[in-house]
């Protein structure tokens, strides 16, 4: 039974949806952050699936760049989380709804 392209796309869509739901439901900044990583991974799965099924290496190059962006985002995002935690002693997004210090 050969895997079809649509299976991978469906899995990717499900993962992306779970990530979106997590971002909307969670109140903890770190959990929302991990849900964003999950969404990035779902998109990566789509890229790799198309790249493999259409025999084109461009998709995998794009995945590489997306991973770099995700790493940069992780570094900066965690720095912001630490700065917010120092100011407010809380990781709840509702406590950080204003951008004022």
């Amino acid at each position, binding site marked *: 039974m050969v895997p079809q392209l*649509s299976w991978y796309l469906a899995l990717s869509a499900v993962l992306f949806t779970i990530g979106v739901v997590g971002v909307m*439901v969670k109140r903890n900044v770190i959990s929302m952050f991990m*849900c964003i990583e999950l969404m990035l*991974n779902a998109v990566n799965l789509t890229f790799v699936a198309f*790249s493999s099924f259409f025999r084109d290496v461009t998709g995998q*190059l794009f995945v590489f760049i997306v991973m770099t*962006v995700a790493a940069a985002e992780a*570094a*900066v995002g965690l720095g912001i989380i630490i700065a917010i935690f120092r100011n407010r002693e809380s*990781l709840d997004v509702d406590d950080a709804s204003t951008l004022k210090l």
Partner: protein
Amino acid sequence: MAIGCAISMVGQRNPLYSAISLVGVFISLACLYVTLAAPFIAAVQVIIYAGAIMVLVVFVIMLLNVEEEERRPMRLRSLVPIAVSLAAILFAEAAFIIFFVQTSPATPTANVSDVGLTASIGSGLFTTYLLPFEITSILLLMAVVGAMTLARRGGLLPANVGVVPGYQSFAKDTLDPRTTPDLTQVVARTSEEAERLLGVAKVPHTQDSE
């Protein structure tokens, strides 16, 4: 397995368990990449995501001593029926599309090819896509500088600095960078007072330094 780990990730209340479930998602996605004939991307996925990023996340969770979320009443309860109906429409559309994709002529199937190998990725990355690659390096540099700036603790003074002995006065924004344009003078009459204002620990003078 990836879906199960993802659901467990969103469902957990403790962020640490959620992070561990996310590692499970990453590793099962890496297995999928291997079956899609992309071994390089699979290796990079394990190294970068399951290694570096999750270590960072777990480190921050430990550092900030996150407690479990408490249950709270849901906001916007009136929107729940609308959300359910929209979700039903979305699922109907998705089922429709998947049904017609299955009945349409077959898509090309994946065989073993050289597409996912490290050599082809490297040659593509350094010839056709050289400019995005360089931009990526600049982005990483910006991220390093930005993360250091954000995570730095307040002042610009290194940890082992001492104060000049005696009477002195400072501008207020030197003492607290959050009040930056404020140049009001703050007077310290003795060295101890200056140390307390600057937040500098007193450096003990050792014998060999004299």
